[in-house]
């Protein structure tokens, strides 16, 4: 798309018009967008077209089009957009002043030539895996409108799956990029914890929050990820010291040491989820089952830290405006605020030893595989899920397989796959690498992409 814009084969304005028309035609049914930034998008598209025209005419290096020239994209509405109120999925934030500047990652996308078309629906304050938002309505899965899109970046997954935009940005604390990528059948990346700047986004859990892209193609995911990288010393949670692009490394699909996670990750996956993991493993030649250390403990610790930090962050509003909170999560926020401090401190101390065990595992493996969600998307409003004979609360269970991974900070590419037993609904495979080795996850994902076993499918909307 960007190459065509740079070459003058299509204009950024034309791509924008097509995106806007698709949003107009489909959003009443899928409910992905909460804000549209039409004027800004037109301004950005015109600037890209003018830049590309100058480049073609004069070849001045200063006018060289960015890698995402003219590509429409949208962001979860916890990203600051200058002049727009950062809702973070809430009613409470409606009374906040509009953002005075863009989030750092929005600035990075603009520098790369991308065109921002709006803000996207999400679970309130990112505390959920389903995007059943009572204030703005639920997101509807483009592959089956009766089903959830996953969350909390549900609008981000929905917009890509519905063909509204080819790239979106989301956040992932416990699975909030990987779960909607899985349930909507799109590519998703949760980078290493500390890889991308979080400045200018509404926080959820300071010590676990990640940001990342979702896309309709693996190349698009890599382009966006490379464009987003820019070490930020002003974000205390940004630990990256240099940019490490992946795009030029993906073609090297040589031998990788690839294992399949068993135990906890097998036990909490339904047969359909196990099927896609088996297909990915077969495609990649992975035969060895690997035990991930302390997965159940890690999920418990992540759960405790999430509840405690989330409850503390919103304590003032919970005191005075609890009735304005999302009914599906307000009691969890309050329970988190009341947790004994010993629970939180022990969970954080546990995390350090856990990290060391996980990193030691990657001395023997380049990439590990497991499902991203226990099952395909359930119907909106589902309260309980049967996972291999065990009843699990639906809204929490969607993160069973993602939480232990993000708690260790490992990068994950969510590769969309299509089981034969889910009536056409997708489930993603998590392609997991050691911290700072996104390149290895992308290489394995490229093998799945090229083999034709992972990728998006069109929707009938």
């Amino acid at each position, binding site marked *: 798309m960007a190459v065509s814009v740079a070459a003058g084969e299509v204009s950024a304005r034309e791509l924008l018009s097509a995106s806007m028309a698709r949003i107009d035609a489909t959003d009443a049914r899928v409910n992905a967008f909460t804000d549209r930034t039409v004027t800004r998008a037109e301004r950005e598209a015109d600037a890209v077209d003018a830049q590309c025209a100058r480049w073609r005419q004069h070849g001045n290096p200063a006018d060289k089009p960015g890698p995402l020239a003219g590509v429409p994209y949208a962001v979860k509405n916890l990203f600051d957009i200058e002049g727009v109120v950062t809702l973070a999925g809430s009613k409470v934030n409606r009374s906040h002043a509009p953002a005075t500047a863009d989030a750092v990652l929005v600035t990075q996308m603009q520098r790369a030539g991308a065109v921002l078309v709006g803000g996207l629906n999400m679970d309130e304050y990112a505390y959920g895996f389903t995007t059943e938002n009572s204030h703005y309505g639920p997101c509807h899965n483009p592959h089956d409108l009766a089903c959830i899109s996953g969350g909390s970046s549900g609008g981000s997954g929905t917009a890509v799956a519905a063909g509204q935009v080819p790239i979106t940005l989301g956040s992932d604390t416990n699975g909030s990029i990987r779960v909607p990528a899985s349930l909507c059948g799109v590519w998703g990346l949760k980078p290493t914890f500390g890889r991308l700047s979080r400045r200018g986004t509404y926080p959820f859990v300071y010590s676990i929050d990640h940001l990342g892209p979702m896309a309709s193609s693996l190349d698009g995911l890599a382009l966006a990820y490379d464009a987003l990288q820019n070490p930020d010393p002003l974000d205390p949670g940004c630990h990256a010291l240099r940019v490490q692009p992946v795009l030029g490394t993906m073609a090297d699909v040589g031998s990788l040491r690839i294992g399949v996670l068993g135990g906890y990750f097998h036990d909490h996956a339904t047969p359909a989820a196990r099927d896609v993991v088996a297909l990915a493993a077969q495609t990649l030649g992975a035969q060895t089952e690997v035990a991930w250390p302390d997965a159940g403990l890690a999920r418990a610790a992540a759960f405790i830290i999430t509840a405690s930090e989330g409850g503390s962050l919103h304590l003032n509003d919970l005191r005075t405006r609890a009735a304005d909170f999302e009914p599906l999560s307000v009691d969890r926020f309050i329970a988190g605020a*009341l947790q004994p401090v010993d629970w939180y401190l*022990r969970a954080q101390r546990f995390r*350090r030893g856990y990290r060391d065990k996980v990193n030691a595992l990657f001395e023997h493996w380049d990439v590990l595989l497991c499902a991203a969600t226990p099952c395909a998307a359930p119907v909106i409003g589902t309260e309980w899920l049967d996972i291999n004979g065990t009843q699990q609360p639906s809204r929490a269970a969607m993160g069973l397989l993602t939480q232990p991974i993000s708690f260790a900070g490992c990068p994950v590419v969510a590769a969309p796959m299509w089981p034969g037993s889910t009536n056409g609904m997708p489930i993603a495979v998590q392609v997991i690498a050691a911290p700072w080795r996104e390149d290895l996850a992308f290489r394995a994902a490229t093998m799945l992409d090229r083999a034709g076993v992972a990728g998006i499918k069109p929707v009938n909307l």
Partner: protein
Amino acid sequence: MTPSNDLPIADYVKSTAAVLGLPLDAAQTARVAVYLQRTAAMAAVIQAVELPLDEELVEIFCPAAFPVMYDGRNEL
């Protein structure tokens, strides 16, 4: 688990909510207690893990980035 103010943890919810200035009615106290009871089960699992003394949280705080240039005393 059905919301109930008979849960032992419901008393804890009432008292800590009062300390934090969180106004909860009986129904909400019961619902919050259900969630906190679930988390308590998870916390019990973590409590059972023996943590070495050196598994500490000092990484949360750093007074300033370590200097990488000459600081007037040493070549760093």
